[in-house]
């Protein structure tokens, strides 16, 4: 494959959601020109905007798939575009794929969300144009995160995701949505200050030059000042950890996920948390290379992961609103990924990366499926969750997906999350035995206990809603509502059996290359 084509594809990928954000402004303006009284234009404008957003997300995914062909072979792509330096290795491409996959799935539900909101919250803002513009900008900023080479630019991109996502979380503009937006922006922007200070300490740790490009820094990491590197990693973990939803900075998660529009919840949980995780991974590599071993980062990540996992458990077991329960599952799964990173070694890192993808897809599936339920039950006493019963009878396909997706989310076989959790557990047990470490064995036992308890929690929540007699005025599900869910569910199922290699896309190889990037940076280490 010609690298020039890849560069062009990457540039197009960067601009696609940005153009979509600008283009979605046009239909409303054109509508005003066409009909000064505005009659009959809102529907036309919404259809156009929806088409543009879905088309942009589809093009982005196609371009991302195109990019995913080369890095699986270990090649890297570096280029300059509009004054910014971009660098794509296997790890970047893996996260780019993840962002675009979930963004496309979420974009397919914007129309149904906007219609639902207009029906259930007639007095609240239903500004479709604003929603489309910010959604595309959110997609754009999340896409930049894994593509930029410079660590300060990476920070700026993560920071921009905060602004766009805050507006989306507070989109409904009612008291609860704004409270959630407030908590979200305050916690994550406090975190982001720590992240910039961590980046700044890393800059000070480097005695060799002025570049903050990751691709340069990994080459000179062995010369870094170790104290500054350690302090830098701690600040980065607190800073980006707040954004990734690590305990104890996770408190925005249930509010943000719970009150956000359901396509946005899918993006927040599926992708935004992973963007922050991506930033942590880049610093993880630099820190390990600078210190010469993984002991320092491993211990911190292991404790952090277990803490998140343990803290999520009682909240999942407690009776709560379903979207909040799903948010606590994000805390749990980010804990599992962090635990995997803490275990270290290529098997656990492979498992952690795979878990990031599995969680993103499964969580998007769950939020979107529950969104379908909200849409169908919109006429049922103002959408109070106590009245959401009998989903399996009222909307059987959505109910079926929700039930099996729930099982997948709690790590039941034969679904994807089981596989990645099993890989992480396997690596943990292997290391505990090899090192004869009581601490690691205890950590692994705690991991197993938490995961088992969580299994019971979600089953109880789902059982309450899935079975029973549904109310009479439930709207039936449509093909457009269930088709994307079935595609996502198919991925969940296939990834439960194997990590597939499909034609030009060798996903296991892409994952292996990503693991090598995390372990060794840009130079081959094995």
């Amino acid at each position, binding site marked *: 494959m010609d690298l020039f084509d890849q560069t062009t594809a990457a540039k197009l990928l960067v601009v696609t959601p940005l153009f979509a954000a600008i283009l979605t402004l046009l239909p409303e303006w054109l509508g005003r020109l066409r009909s000064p009284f505005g009659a009959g234009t809102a529907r036309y404008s919404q259809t156009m905007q929806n088409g543009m957003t879905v088309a942009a997300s589809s093009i982005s995914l196609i371009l991302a798939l195109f990019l995913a062909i080369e890095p699986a072979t270990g090649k890297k792509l570096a280029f300059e575009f509009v004054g910014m330096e971009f660098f794509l290795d296997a790890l970047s491409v893996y996260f780019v794929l993840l962002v675009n996959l979930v963004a496309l799935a979420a974009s397919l539900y914007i129309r149904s969300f906007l219609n639902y909101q207009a029906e259930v919250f007639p007095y609240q803002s239903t500004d479709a144009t604003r929603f489309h513009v910010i959604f595309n900008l959110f997609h754009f900023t999340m896409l930049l995160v894994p593509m930029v080479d410079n660590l300060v630019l990476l920070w700026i991109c993560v*920071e921009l995701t905060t602004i766009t996502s805050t507006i989306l979380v507070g989109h409904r503009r009612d008291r609860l949505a704004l409270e959630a937006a407030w908590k979200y922006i305050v916690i994550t922007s406090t975190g982001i200050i720590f992240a910039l200070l961590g980046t*700044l300490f890393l800059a000070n740790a480097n005695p060799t030059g002025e570049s903050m490009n990751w691709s340069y820094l990994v080459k000179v990491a062995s010369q870094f000042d170790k104290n500054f590197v350690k302090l830098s990693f701690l600040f980065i973990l607190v800073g980006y950890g707040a954004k990734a939803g690590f305990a104890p900075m996770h408190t925005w998660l249930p509010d943000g996920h719970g009150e956000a529009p359901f396509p946005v919840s899918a993006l927040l949980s599926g992708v935004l948390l992973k963007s922050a995780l991506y930033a942590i991974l880049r610093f993880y590599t630099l820190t390990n290379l600078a210190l010469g071993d993984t002991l320092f980062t491993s211990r911190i990540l292991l404790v952090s992961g277990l803490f998140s996992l343990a803290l999520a458990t009682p909240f999942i077991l407690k009776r709560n609103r379903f979207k909040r329960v799903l948010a606590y599952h994000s805390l749990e799964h980010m804990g599992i990924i962090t635990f995997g990173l803490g275990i270290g070694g290529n098997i656990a890192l492979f498992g952690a990366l795979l878990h990031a993808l599995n969680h993103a897809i499964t969580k998007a599936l769950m939020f979107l499926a529950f969104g379908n339920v909200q849409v169908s039950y919109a006429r049922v006493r103002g959408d109070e969750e106590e009245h959401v019963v009998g989903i399996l009878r009222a909307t059987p396909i959505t109910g079926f997906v929700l039930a099996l997706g729930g099982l997948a989310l709690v790590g039941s076989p034969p679904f994807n999350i089981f596989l990645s959790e099993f890989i992480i557990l396997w690596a943990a047990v292997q290391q505990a035995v090899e090192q004869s470490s009581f601490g690691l064995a205890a950590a692994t036992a705690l991991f197993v206990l938490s995961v088992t308890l969580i299994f019971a929690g979600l089953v109880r929540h789902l059982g309450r809603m899935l079975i029973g007699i549904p109310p009479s005025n439930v709207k039936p599900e449509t093909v457009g509502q269930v088709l994307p869910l079935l595609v996502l569910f198919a991925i969940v199922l296939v990834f439960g059996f194997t990590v597939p290699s499909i034609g030009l896309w060798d996903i296991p190889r892409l994952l292996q290359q990503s693991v090598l990037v995390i372990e060794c940076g840009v130079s081959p280490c094995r």
Partner: protein
Amino acid sequence: MEFLPELILVISFFILLVAVSISTSTTVKSMLNLYQWQALMVTAIVLFTAAESQPINLPLAVVAVLPIFLALAIKPLLRRATLAVPEEPGKAESKTRPQLLEADGEGGLGMLPREPELTWLQQGRSRLPPVVLLGIGSMLTLFSFIVAYLLIGKGPQPGIDPNSVGISIALLLIGILIMSNKRDIIAQIIGLLVMEHGLFLAAIKVITRPHLAIFFAGALFFYILITLTILVWLLPTLHRVSGSIELNAQAQLKG
């Protein structure tokens, strides 16, 4: 110009003192005034640091616009947020000031004072008494300086002043203390702004290479966007919808 490093250090310590004073303040009004003084000092440090280098570092001097801009903008922005009239339930959109002015004579303008006062200025209640806060603030400062001296004392970084690192970390921690102690949103925003000043100092004084310092300072322009999102969009909308800036009123989401 030889006196500049000493002058910068003295001002930096004053910034720290002001941060501790903000944390012990009992009204938003005094917090805002102290914050504005602190911003002025940060601006002075940025300008002096730019003047320290030969020739004068102009890009760095431009960064001085940021703290002073926020310091000048904060009161008008808060006033604007105060004017966001609480919304009646079931009403589609609350009225903006121009709409209210237009509706004068129909009872519209009567809803607003002609010379708007910051009605929130008397708030700023603390969870802890000032003496305790002073103690915690001092402990956090001490901790920050210990970390800074341990870090720089061991490392081979010529030109990095441990005092600047210590003050930066202390401002961050005191900012968090302010945010967690106060019961209203504006006090929390001021906590965030104090943290931002810590970041300014770090970008300007902790980074020793001029090119990188400007790069980091440039990143702060983007951070200001978050502050503006809060002040220009979130705060007025939140007040309009909930009619309160007390954190207790924003605690409906639980569990």
